[in-house]
């Protein structure tokens, strides 16, 4: 069993931290885990990628070989990473930033909007994403995520972030309970 997730977006969206929290949670759940991030050509700006591999046994190759889940927060991040999906992988996108997704199992959520409006803090988009993702990832317990967040986030902003995470989680659960996927839904959507 090997489960691969990738969070992709722009630098500054906190995806590296989100990936680490995710990895930490998986560790708490007793999994073997590897996290890596893509350092773009420039330390700042540009796209940012954070990747987590969860497994029950030693992880040999530490990079994704077929993504079970992709969270993409902008169009380019989505386009660039779709080729790495497993056939039945799940793609979660921010609905306002990602318009076109040539993929079957897609979830579109207004993550950035939620962050900007409900939280008045565009930076919590990573926590919302983590929440949604947790709802769909079979290997991660929400409690472990809470614990991981607590240990990795600065105390001052913890509550705020936890709240965003929980919001994301319920958005996810909500969606999970009513989602049916149909193949290549975007094919006509060009």
């Amino acid at each position: 069993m090997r489960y691969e997730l990738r969070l992709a977006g722009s630098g500054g969206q906190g995806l590296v931290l989100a990936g680490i929290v995710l990895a930490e949670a998986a560790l708490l759940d007793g999994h073997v885990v590897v996290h890596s991030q893509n350092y773009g050509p420039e330390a700042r700006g540009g796209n940012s990628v954070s990747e987590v591999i969860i497994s029950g046994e030693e992880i040999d190759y530490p990079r994704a070989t077929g993504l079970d889940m992709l969270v993409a927060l902008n169009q380019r991040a989505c386009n660039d990473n779709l080729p790495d999906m497993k056939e039945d992988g799940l793609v979660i996108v921010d609905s306002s930033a990602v318009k076109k997704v040539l993929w079957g199992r897609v979830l579109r959520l207004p993550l950035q909007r939620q962050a900007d409006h409900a939280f008045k803090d565009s930076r919590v988009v990573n926590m919302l994403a983590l929440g949604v993702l947790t709802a769909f990832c079979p290997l991660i317990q929400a409690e472990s995520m809470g614990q991981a967040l607590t240990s990795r986030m600065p105390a001052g902003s913890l509550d705020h972030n936890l709240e965003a995470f929980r919001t994301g989680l319920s958005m996810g659960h909500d969606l999970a309970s009513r989602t049916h996927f149909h193949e290549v839904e975007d094919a006509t959507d060009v």
Partner: protein
Amino acid sequence: MTGQEHLIHRYLRSSKRFPHVWCPGCGIGILLGALVRAIDGNGYGKDDIVLISGIGCSGRLPVYLDFNTLHTTHGRALTFATGIKLAKPKLKVIAIMGDGDASSIGGNHLIHSARRNIDITAIIINNQIYGMTGGQSSPTTPFGLHTASSPFGHLEHPFDIAKLVEAAGAPFVARSTVYHARILERLIGTAIAKSGFSVIEVMSPCVTHFGKWSGIGSAVQMMQWQKDNTVSIEKARNMTPTELQGKVVTGVLIDAHKPTFHEEHARISREMKD
């Protein structure tokens, strides 16, 4: 039309992707504008200018400009610049360096270029931190500041770069800030026109790292800081050391005359021929 729009676009490399690589509010872009206006104002042709940089955020400057441009190794811009200047004395050679680049790993080349009086204009973009590698302390980081490599407060004392190059023999030394973009432009113009080793220390906000560690904060706040903490050399002359505490003194700090290395070398070469 007086818009900078046309001026800057005459010099930007259209083939490079914009917006440029620097963080929002980073001072390097402002310096770039001032540099272009200074060069244009002095009336040099594009082929007359060689722009050489080391490695660092500041090192990324030359690639954007349509001159002869060279991005060298960390700290060594002035060594390459020396070779180019001596190979082609007619060229106006400008070295762009970060504070770490120029005064940490490259400190020796800086003082020797000053001593030798090589006809180069050294523009030191002093953001008081290592920007490119992520906010470690540099030789100009203030004592006590917490940074990525001084998590308990910086234990070292900063260089006064201007004083250092003066002591090393530089005949022209000036300092300004990117807030003072117009003065900066004029100082750069003067420095490039001046024959001999001229140094301009440009205080420039590293919003991302210095802003974070110093607690000054945003780009606007860092620019405001520059505005509030700058004193011109003319005013500074009438101020006490206590009054000057924590202030950045700007303007032309040194302006002297000294024969340059390539003039001297040309002299002996001429003597050789006779």
